């Protein structure tokens, strides 16, 4: 008896391979943007592996953290610098890949029925990943680590009634200090990665029920995909995916070796000092757009805070904001225009987020924030227009 048969009797591996790979079909009319889901998984794997190696030398203690990162890991451990560069660049690129993955979903309508659960679990993954990145950023205990954590945790103060107590509860002290570092460490290396894995599993399971969306937003049955409309996940889809991965990894490691500064801010090579506030405090680039929405309502802190929270979560409600019967943006001329305005606005907000919020920049931030929300608020209207058009066409 062959080993594979022996295993099959016990674990039904042949059926498993069929269901998940060789007889799982993805539509043929997709482009390489559909590769980004697998790329997210790849970057996650890179982060886990590099993270485990960093964990072997990192010291979660306010007195030791900075030196364990910048001396032990960066200078003393063989190739320690490689793992840190990979982890730092990996965290940054994770968000680039995530944003592209999400933007593809928004453009081609992948959030629409029957894929709402796919979208929601994906959105939860985005939020969890943001929390992972935020807690991880404190760990090197540099100036920007410290002040970003200090600034963002202060935001919770504005929550009615429980705010001030909540801030102390989160920090474990009146200011960000050792207790904050150790708890962020616990969240970053255990709790959040566990949740990420659980939700990734649900996300992947969920996408397999309706199957992947496609450029035209058409619905294909399994039979249709088997006979002409689709390609098997293995080996056909993955054959292309491996090529995309190779190109992506070339880009990724180019950044790791030669262009890593964007992910390792120079100011973070100064140790955290609670007596000295840096002149400019800004989050990592992937939070800049949301941060700019917070600052955009410069005339009212409370309004800014509400807008900030809303900006981070409003996209989760896309399936209920956009109820148009036409799925793919490819066949929705008005939506297409709105989409590109939204993308341009997001880039615009990201750039503004790092600039000093004064004079003209403050007003531009306000306008940018309004456009950000206008996109979401316009969706029900566009949906109504398109519903009428579809009904009239019949």
């Amino acid at each position, binding site marked *: 008896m062959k080993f594979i048969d022996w295993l099959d009797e016990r674990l039904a591996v042949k059926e498993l391979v069929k269901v998940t790979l060789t007889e799982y079909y993805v539509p043929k009319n997709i482009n390489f943007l559909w590769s980004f889901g697998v790329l997210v998984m790849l970057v996650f794997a890179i982060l886990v592996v590099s993270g485990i190696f960093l964990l072997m030398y990192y010291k979660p203690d306010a007195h030791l953290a900075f030196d364990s990162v910048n001396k032990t890991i960066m200078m003393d451990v063989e190739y320690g610098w490689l793992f840190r*560069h990979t982890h730092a660049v990996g965290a940054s690129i994770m968000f680039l890949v995530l944003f592209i993955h999400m933007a593809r979903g928004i453009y081609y309508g992948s959030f629409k029925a029957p894929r709402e659960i796919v979208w929601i679990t994906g959105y939860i993954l985005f939020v969890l990943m943001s929390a992972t990145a935020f807690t991880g950023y404190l760990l090197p205990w540099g100036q920007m680590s410290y002040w970003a954590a200090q600034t963002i945790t202060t935001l919770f103060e504005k929550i009615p009634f429980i705010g001030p107590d909540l801030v102390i509860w989160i920090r474990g002290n009146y200011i960000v200090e050792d207790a904050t570092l150790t708890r962020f460490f616990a969240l970053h290396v255990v709790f959040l990665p566990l949740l990420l894995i659980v939700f990734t599993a649900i996300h992947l399971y969920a996408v397999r029920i309706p199957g992947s969306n496609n450029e035209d937003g058409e619905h294909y049955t399994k039979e249709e995909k088997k006979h002409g409309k689709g390609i098997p996940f293995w080996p*056909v889809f993955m*054959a*292309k995916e491996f*090529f995309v991965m190779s190109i992506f990894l*070339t880009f990724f490691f180019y950044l790791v*070796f030669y262009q890593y500064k964007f992910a390792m801010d120079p100011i973070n090579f100064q140790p955290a000092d609670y007596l000295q506030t840096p002149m400019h405090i800004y989050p990592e*680039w992937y939070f800049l757009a949301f941060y700019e929405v917070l600052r955009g309502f410069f005339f009212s802190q409370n309004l800014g805070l509400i807008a900030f929270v809303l900006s981070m979560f409003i996209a989760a409600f896309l399936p209920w904001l956009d109820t148009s019967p036409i799925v793919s943006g490819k066949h929705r001329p008005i939506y297409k225009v709105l989409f590109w305005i939204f993308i341009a606005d997001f880039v615009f907000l990201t*750039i503004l987020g790092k600039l000093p919020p004064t004079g003209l920049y403050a007003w531009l931030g306000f306008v940018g924030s309004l456009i950000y929300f206008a996109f979401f608020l316009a969706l029900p209207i566009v949906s109504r227009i398109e519903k009428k058009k579809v009904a009239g066409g019949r």
Partner: protein
Amino acid sequence: MKELKILAILVVIVLIGYWGIEPYAHSVMHGEVKKSDYAYSDLKVSAPTGGDATKGKELFMANCASCHGVKNDGINPGMDKNAAITSFNVVPPDLSNTAAILDHKFLVAFIKNPQEATKNPKFAMPPMAQLSDEDVANIIAYLSSVAKKDLTGKEIVVEACGRCHSVKYQKIEAETPKDNLKAYLGKIPPDLSVMGKAKELEYLESFINNPQNGLPGTSMPRLGLTKEATEKTVAYLDQIADPHRDQRNKLGVWVLGYLLFMAGLTFAWKKKIWKNIH
């Protein structure tokens, strides 16, 4: 073709974003780095000429040796280290190699009026107004005669920065105790171990030349280093902050080469698998 178009759009968006958050944001936040002035043109003195080292040594013994030593010439300071720290909150430097790393015109101005030359009104050394131009030239001639030539970057950092700054990853401890430094300068000067990463090298060079260039109002005194000494200092700080640069650059080539090779292989496989699909 369509996929290349999509890729081109992605690349353009990413590049615009990158330009905005890196080069553009930095130019707005930090502005232009001020140019270094190694002629110290704000100081209204002229560089010393001539000078007699023997006379200089006599003058040194009479005017400087109560606080400063010259180890190269076997001269110990009259005041021991602890007494100096108690009176000045900072250790007076040994002047063995000073003339090799400091600009001589700056030295003239410094000896006559340290507060003005360093741009630090609380600078510990009192002005030596009693010395004539000739006296000063003689002292500088003496210091030049004992100074070691061709100091390394590390030696310069120890000489020029080591009284106040530690470089703990290189096991260099600031000569003056932290509490005294805090009393003298208002804060403990930062450790220099990874300063080469925390600041742009161009900024560091301009800052060392004149700290007021980078941090107006800072209590760090202007040191008056020559161009050569400044450049060696910056090169040293850069090198200790990034000791694995060569290894990184070399390994990078191999990794990228390997990945491009993989891209070739995977492309060939994709072609083969997709031959009959379309």
